[in-house]
């Protein structure tokens, strides 16, 4: 049995050596998605093919696996499906089978069974690498999303606003708070509006972060207004038992801006022609 198996193995190795160009050509045809894909893939498949032959002879698959991992990672980045990537590897079986069929010998056929097992393993390996590569891409994107800084925008002379969107965790609140406090100093603003329209749920942690931010801004002499409190959020905050104390809250950013403008002495006259009169505060 082992004698037969060894003979089959040797025969396949011979065939792989003798018909390299033919197998590679056929493999490339079945593996490539289109002509544009072909030139890049041709070089890669040739490398993989040589590594495959080396590994069959030496039994050491580390080089081969390294190449295959590179291949599936780059296919994942280019947006090929995992099936396409695995099929690209399985394609070599088809190419080799043509040679085996032409050979017609029992040894070659026996060897081919052994060969397909190895290729199946390699195909599954690329599948795993592909999944790992995709996961890495997703993790990177999640980190990029977290890093998306929250802008502090100037609404009016002396009034800045922070539109908060998404989940507020400790790390993000820290960034928001630092930015807001720095902007208050840089612009000399006395009013800040924190808009939470884009925050899907206000739980005790989010509320605590908001309260701390407001208190910190107050310590610097700025007044904070929290805006964007939708009915369901108001309901939830009341039921939870969170108290915002004397912090001014408004339903919309527009209300908050109007409030801040009033507080800083700006009068808005909404006549037919909108006029904005700035009144100097008496000192």
């Amino acid at each position, binding site marked *: 049995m082992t004698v037969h198996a060894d003979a089959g193995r040797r025969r396949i190795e011979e065939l792989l050596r003798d018909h390299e160009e033919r197998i590679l050509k056929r493999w490339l045809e079945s593996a490539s998605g289109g002509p544009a894909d072909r030139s890049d893939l041709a070089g890669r498949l040739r490398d993989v093919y040589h590594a495959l032959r080396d590994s069959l002879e030496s039994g050491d698959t580390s080089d081969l696996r390294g190449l295959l991992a590179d291949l599936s990672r780059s296919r994942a980045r280019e947006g090929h499906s995992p099936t396409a990537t695995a099929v690209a590897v399985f394609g070599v079986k088809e190419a080799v089978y043509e040679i085996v069929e032409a050979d017609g010998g029992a040894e070659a056929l026996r060897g081919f069974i052994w060969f397909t097992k190895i290729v199946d393993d390699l195909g599954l390996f690329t599948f795993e690498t592909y999944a790992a590569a995709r996961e890495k891409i997703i993790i990177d994107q999640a980190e990029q999303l977290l890093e998306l800084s929250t802008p502090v925008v100037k609404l009016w002379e002396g009034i800045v606003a922070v539109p908060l969107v998404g989940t507020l965790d400790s790390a993000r609140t820290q960034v928001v708070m630092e930015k807001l406090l720095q902007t208050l100093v840089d612009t000399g603003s006395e009013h800040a509006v924190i808009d939470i329209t884009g925050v899907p*749920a*206000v*739980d005790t942690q989010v509320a*605590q972060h908001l309260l701390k931010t407001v208190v910190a801004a107050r310590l610097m002499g700025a007044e904070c207004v929290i805006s964007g409190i939708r009915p369901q*959020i108001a*309901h939830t905050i009341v039921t*939870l*038992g*969170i108290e915002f104390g004397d912090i001014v809250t408004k339903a919309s950013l527009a209300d908050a801006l109007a409030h801040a403008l009033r507080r800083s002495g700006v009068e808005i006259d909404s006549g037919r022609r909108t006029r904005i009169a700035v009144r100097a505060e008496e000192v």
Partner: protein
Amino acid sequence: MTSPAELPITGNGDVVLVRQQVRATAVEVGLSLVDQTKVVTAASELARNALVYAGGGRARIEIVHNGARSGLRLTFSDDGPGIPDIEQALTDGWTTGGGLGLGLSGSRRLVDEFDLRSAPGEGTLVTVTKWAR
């Protein structure tokens, strides 16, 4: 009825996932927008409790029926240190973790049914239900 979903809670990202899954299920059950927000907030509190006080746990989200009424049942379990004094833990403003002390007591008010089982060294099991009106 969909089969109950089991989600692990091992990090802040999982709390967000639990929240999203609870919201999706709440919509499926037909909870009003206010009730959706309430149950999502309660889920957020309880999931974070499991994370902060027990280092992680599990969340189970299922749809339950009582006659013609449908509801959303959430079960949070952990193998943490447990709660020695449950009554105290359910008091407004009581916290051992530096929070507002409203998470547990507030969650109880946010849902229709609230069941807390815990003993020192035996972990904590919180089951809450919100019925559609």
